[in-house]
């Protein structure tokens, strides 16, 4: 497969900026203004373009952008799966477009959706209660760790540490630090899993929680999860499940059954809501019984007569989002789960794991850790993984996540998800293999068929120009 991306070029730029197409200044005139001069700005300078000009501008920008609807997007840990179109339509229901301060009586539909999704997620994760408020995965982590902190505080335990495997997502470390905890980093054992001896040495009465991704970030299931849970619980700590890799487990294992006390769900990963170029996502958090009273306020519940109401958990941590989180995303997640049901959810994971294994089998690169599930970390060996990835861009595929996790040298962390057919996986494998075996010169100068050729990232950071105002005079 060869791919030539759309490329509009005008001199030394591609599509000109809106501000290069038009810049108009409006003066805020005291004589027409409803406000006294001292309370208003003097003028406002922005592009003033007609609708046809804007339609063309943004259409061109869209053409210069890769997406899951363009082709495979096998970013490890990102779970780029197809976003069913009908979920957009259900989320656009005008009756659902209400203000968050509406009375519960007048918002039964929205509360019903929230309640239904809470229930779905609870059963999928094996949790007892769920909050839908966190607006992203990292916000879910933060919520979960605040819940853990509130739980320990409530029981008079002042704990200072959160244990995190070295291979974990960067958000885990940042989350623990934001919540005021010291991070204890846990090395992996030779097989790529949690080193039990190291864990034993790390847990103590200072342990607030262990944050674990399972399967972990190279796709391995933590086989000793029961023992891990026991060690953490015996020390009085809580076990936190990072839901980034839940797409490996649907219908085959539930975090709650493995001894996890708190988990977040990345609904923009596992439950197919669109990533939107970086967001919005949603990061609902599930907890076991003894932690439900600490969840954010409010939650939704069903009354005896089939109505829905809001309620505040007794020892709630309060709020983690100004309102009810990323509402439109939550509707889409509900619709996706309803569409799949039991068999669809289990099949999604089965096919995701099959696809990862089949793809890896076709690659010339070595995959040092296994058996892996929905994702694997191939190593580019003596080649630069980032360069190999750039070359893949010329072959009509998006490359995997590169150079992470660090336990695999020159890692290419690959997660094809269940949506790719055998044929697409073969195309993807060919792209991997062609790029991997290409000449040094070819991979170092790639890509050539994308809108932009290789971009100088270093100078972007060294001389930050972050607005069109900063480009004035260039």
């Amino acid at each position, binding site marked *: 497969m060869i791919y030539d991306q759309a490329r509009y070029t005008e001199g030394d730029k591609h599509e000109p900026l809106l501000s290069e197409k038009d810049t108009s200044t409006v003066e805020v005139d005291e004589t027409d203004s409803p406000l006294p001069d001292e309370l208003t700005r003097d003028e406002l300078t922005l592009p003033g373009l007609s609708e046809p000009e804007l*339609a063309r501008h943004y259409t061109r920008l869209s053409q210069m952008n890769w997406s*899951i609807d363009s082709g495979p997007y096998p970013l490890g840990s990102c779970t780029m799966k197809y976003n069913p179109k009908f979920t957009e339509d259900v989320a656009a229901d005008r009756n659902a477009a209400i203000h968050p301060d509406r009375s519960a009586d007048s918002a039964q539909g929205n509360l019903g959706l929230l309640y239904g999704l809470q229930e779905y997620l609870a059963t999928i994760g094996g949790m007892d209660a769920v909050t839908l408020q966190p607006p992203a995965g990292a916000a879910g982590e933060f919520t979960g760790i605040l819940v853990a902190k509130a739980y320990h505080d409530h029981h008079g335990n002042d704990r200072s540490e959160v244990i995190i495997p070295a291979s974990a997502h960067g958000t885990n*470390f940042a989350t623990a630090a934001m919540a005021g905890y010291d991070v204890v980093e846990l090395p992996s054992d030779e097989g790529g899993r949690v080193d039990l001896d190291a864990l034993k040495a790390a847990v103590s009465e200072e342990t607030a929680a262990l944050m674990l991704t399972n399967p972990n970030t190279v796709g391995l299931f933590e086989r000793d999860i029961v023992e891990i849970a026991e060690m953490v619980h015996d020390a009085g700590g809580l076990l936190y499940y990072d839901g980034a890799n839940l797409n490996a487990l649907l219908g085959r294992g539930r975090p709650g059954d493995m001894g996890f006390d708190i988990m977040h769900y990345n609904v923009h990963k596992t439950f197919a809501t669109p990533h939107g170029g*970086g967001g919005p996502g949603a990061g609902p958090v599930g907890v076991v019984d003894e932690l439900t009273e600490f969840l954010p306020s409010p939650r939704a519940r069903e009354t005896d007569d089939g109505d829905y109401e809001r309620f505040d958990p007794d020892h709630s941590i*309060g709020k983690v989002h100004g309102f009810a989180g990323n509402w439109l995303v939550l509707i889409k997640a509900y619709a996706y789960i309803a569409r799949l049901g039991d068999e669809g959810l289990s099949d*999604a994971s089965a096919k995701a794991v099959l696809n990862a294994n089949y793809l890896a089998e076709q690659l010339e690169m070595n995959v040092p850790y296994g058996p892996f599930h929905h994702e694997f970390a191939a190593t580019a060996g003596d080649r630069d993984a980032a360069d190999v990835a750039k070359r893949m861009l010329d072959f009509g595929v998006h490359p995997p996540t590169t150079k992470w996790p660090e336990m695999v040298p020159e890692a290419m962390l690959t997660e094809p998800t269940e949506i790719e057919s055998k044929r697409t996986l073969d195309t993807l494998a060919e792209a991997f293999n062609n790029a991997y075996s290409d000449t040094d010169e070819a991979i170092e100068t790639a890509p050539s068929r994308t809108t932009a*050729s*290789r971009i100088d990232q270093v100078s972007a950071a060294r001389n*930050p120009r972050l607005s069109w105002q900063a480009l004035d005079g260039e």
Partner: protein
Amino acid sequence: MTQTDGSPFAPHTAAETAAMLDAVGVDTEADLFDIPDEVAFDGAFNIEPRSEQEIRGELRRLFARNDDLTEFMGRGHYSHYVPSIVDHLSDRAEFLTSYTQYQPEITQGFLQALFEYQSMLVELTGLPIANCSMYDAATALAEAALLADRVRQTSGYRVLVPEYLRDGKRSVLENYVDGAGLAVESYPIDDGNVDREALAELADEETAMIYAENPTVRGTIEEGLSEVGGIADNNEALFCLGSDLVALSLLEEPASVGADVVVGEADVLGLPTSYGMGLGIFATRESFLRQVPGRLVGVSEDADDRRAYTLTLQTREQHIRKERATSNICTNQAWVALRAAIHIASLGPDGLVDLAEDCVRDASALAERVDGIEGYQAPVHDRHHFREFVVHTDQPAAAIAADVEAAGYAIHAIDDHLLQVCLTETNAHATDGLVAALQEAA
């Protein structure tokens, strides 16, 4: 029609599955799972799969259970008319179904749109650095306080906020700053605006940040923000100002009143009412660039010497810096930022200023009408207003709000005898009905 054959979004035929299993060297998919029996699950969630048509019907019926009310609500979540072009362009799958731009060569389009969004915020705030989104206004405020803590040269733990701050926003702020050892304290309000005298007395060398809003949550327009900025300066505290994209189009430029950080609701443009879903503004001074939370799009050149866009200064971020990152934020609200940018572009500077001026004129006109009804006084605060205003009622406010709701309108009851009403172009057609309902309820 019940679908029973696994995921409708996995394209495998039985023959392909068999061939793939064979290639991998296992008999069944189950053989690929390395999950110990003691923690394995049998797959019985008891979630019945439904067809697309069934789900659309089910959710249509469910959402029809929301009462069909005309909302006059605001207090941090606003309804402006979103032109069709915003939906049609932002819904293009190349935007909607793309990921974070970790391979910039193939995602120039979204990067440019986010760069343009950042630039629009630079114009609206007057501050030179704007990131490409926070979750919402509340989390943006919280991140501002954490930035204040990081950049502060001396000790200081107090974050001063107006006593009328929304409870939810305050709670988010408290949750975010707790780990950093900061404490949130209220300063008094004088007839809807910052009580500057009281604030000057409260602020001291232990103050890390002073937060004010313009317009305030009660819709009043502040009149002495430079003085608030001065109070912050005198105490070496940061001045954080909360606003929104429409208000910023008309009101004093934050940079000119000394704001160090601007946060607030960017979702007032681009998003219709959506149960509180947001888009947080985050703009700040050049000197704090390396302490900014979240993603930044910058300009560079490609190998052909053409201008190219890329995520930049990523060493601030969690995936590189881990526990020393400026924030844990990863997934943000990029698509909502795209929508806001399209909306701003479609209004242009004329449209924005007109819209903002209407927010002042219409609120004032409606307040006057409400004031004319026996039993109500509006606006309660003798200030200029933006979009919304507080109404005093002699009756219990909750009872009035309930009566008004029964008549088909939603308004806020914010205190025993205080209501709040918000007006934009999306409910302006219904003001006669609201006035009649208020009259009836009095």
